[in-house]
């Protein structure tokens, strides 16, 4: 049961972090690589953790200089009404939200960067998360929660990163995080421009970018302007069901990733990792995870193609997932977005062991539209709608009411507004 003080705490978290940017005398739109970092690489290429975005990718946010420090804040907040239809119908009024703050400065001939990301979702979505048909079931309170997506942890990243050039064309980096993202997976969906207007988690999240909140990460990297090779040791356990605490930090899993930005509009990556058997919200035996991604941005059109797969130890074949998502912004005031997904679910993923085949092929097609209704200073708000048509096999019909169960979201989104490159405004 919620109470007024938890609501107040949720609001306070968001406002406090955003307010931290207000003392600066000016803000600018942080897009298209305004800040040049090590080797001349735009700081905005770091999409999440150490994963690369295309340099052309828009990353609306506010930055300011404070002495030697460059500060940046960006985030996203949705107030959504979520309605899932069919036998497992459910609905919720809730908020998906997050705020990220970055502070960096020159240090010892390199670049020192601190980053933190927070969310109020444990309060605004409840600890059970929001309804989403066919999402992976999770233990909660001694039982299992099905057809819901969990909230993010209150603190999902606190990281320090240091980069130093080793010559004119090669540099090295170290990333250490009590909670952060290892070199495993694509830029997480929260930070992909192709999903900037979409509040919903991909169905393939748990085989693609679920490790973006790992309690314990160390990543070493070597990179040129276009190629990055890195390796991580990290905690393979998904965060536990208490989303407001810090889980024990450990390094029991490992991963490596190669990223390639052949031009300003493209970024590609391949990765492979081994996750130790774990508890947490997603109990799993030891497994290998691998995948690849291609991200593309041209002007105001961003697209992502992501393949991710889990290969549990002892299994004969991987559990594949595939995602294609795209967002097109039209004249800054309109956005159209869509997502197509294929995932191979297990009966355990759906908490239907013994009732259906051990593995099932699932599909989902989503389409959304957002219309900006308000813009003032650094913030814009839009009204949007998103519909999903899920595609399930015949044996799931009894559990979902049809072979095409649907979901609908209506939402209000608040986020930094998009503006042309390099615009600077005095407050």
């Amino acid at each position, binding site marked *: 049961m919620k109470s007024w003080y938890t609501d107040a705490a949720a*609001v306070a978290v968001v406002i406090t972090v955003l307010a931290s940017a207000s003392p600066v005398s000016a803000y600018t739109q942080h897009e298209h690589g305004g800040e040049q970092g090590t080797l001349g690489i735009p700081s905005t290429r770091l999409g999440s953790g150490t994963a690369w975005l295309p340099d052309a990718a828009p990353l609306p946010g506010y930055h300011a200089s404070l002495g030697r420090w460059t500060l940046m804040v960006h985030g996203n907040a949705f107030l959504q009404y979520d309605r899932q239809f069919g*036998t497992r119908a459910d609905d919720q009024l809730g908020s998906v939200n997050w705020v990220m703050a970055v502070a960096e400065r020159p240090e010892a001939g390199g670049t020192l960067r601190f980053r933190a990301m927070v969310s109020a979702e444990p309060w605004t*979505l409840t600890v059970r998360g929001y309804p989403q048909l066919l999402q992976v079931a999770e233990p909660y309170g001694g039982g299992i929660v099905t057809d819901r997506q969990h909230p993010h942890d209150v603190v999902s990243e606190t990281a320090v990163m240091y980069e130093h050039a080793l010559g004119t064309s090669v540099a090295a980096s170290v990333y250490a995080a009590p909670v952060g993202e290892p070199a495993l997976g694509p830029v997480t969906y929260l930070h992909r421009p192709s999903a900037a207007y979409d509040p919903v988690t991909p169905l393939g999240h748990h085989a693609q970018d679920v490790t973006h909140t790992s309690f314990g990460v160390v990543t070493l990297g070597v990179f040129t302007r276009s190629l990055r090779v890195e390796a991580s040791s990290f905690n393979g356990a998904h965060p536990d069901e208490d989303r407001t605490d810090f889980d024990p930090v450990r390094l029991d899993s490992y991963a490596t990733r190669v990223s390639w930005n052949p031009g300003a509009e493209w970024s590609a990556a391949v990765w492979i990792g081994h996750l130790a058997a774990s508890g947490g919200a997603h109990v799993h035996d030891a497994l290998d995870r691998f995948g690849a991604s291609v991200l593309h941005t041209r002007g105001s059109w961003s697209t992502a193609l992501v393949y991710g797969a889990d290969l549990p130890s002892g299994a004969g074949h991987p559990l594949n997932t595939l995602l294609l998502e795209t967002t097109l912004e039209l004249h800054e005031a309109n956005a159209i977005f869509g997502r197509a997904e294929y995932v191979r679910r297990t009966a355990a993923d759906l908490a239907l062991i*013994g009732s259906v085949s051990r593995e099932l092929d699932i599909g989902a097609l989503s389409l959304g539209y957002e219309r900006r209704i308000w813009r003032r200073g650094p913030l814009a708000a839009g009204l949007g709608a998103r519909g999903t048509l899920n595609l399930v096999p015949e044996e799931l019909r009894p559990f979902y009411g049809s072979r095409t169960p649907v979901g609908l979201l209506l939402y209000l989104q*608040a986020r930094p507004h998009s503006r042309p490159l390099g615009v600077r405004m005095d407050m």
Partner: protein
Amino acid sequence: MRTALLLGILGAACGGGVAGGGAGPGAGPGEPHDVASVRLFDSTGGELTFHIPLFDSVPLRIVVQMYAANGRHLTSVTGGQDMQFAFTPAGLASSTPVTGQPLARDVLSVAPPGTGGTLDVTLHFPADTSTKTFRGFEVLVH
């Protein structure tokens, strides 16, 4: 200031709505044909559906709960039910009924530690003489 105000309104509206959302399908009695899935628990309510750990010479009470297709917990079905456990391989473990608890069995490992297998749960419903088998619950002897 306007940013903070807008976010405050957004957060307050959201918090008020969450409390009423997603109540879940609840629990209650049903008919035999309503039973679409089962989940397994130990005597303390811990979920065993995903993994049944058996420890050498230590009996484990497994309690079966029945669910309708929409996820509603079926606390009972008309006419009751009989239940059988079957392990694969057959020498993995043995089970015995629990007096007064028709949906519970005490399970004892037979195979040595490290042996894995599966459990099939069969429910027979006298009311309509139907039978349903739920196969493939993973078992490991530790």
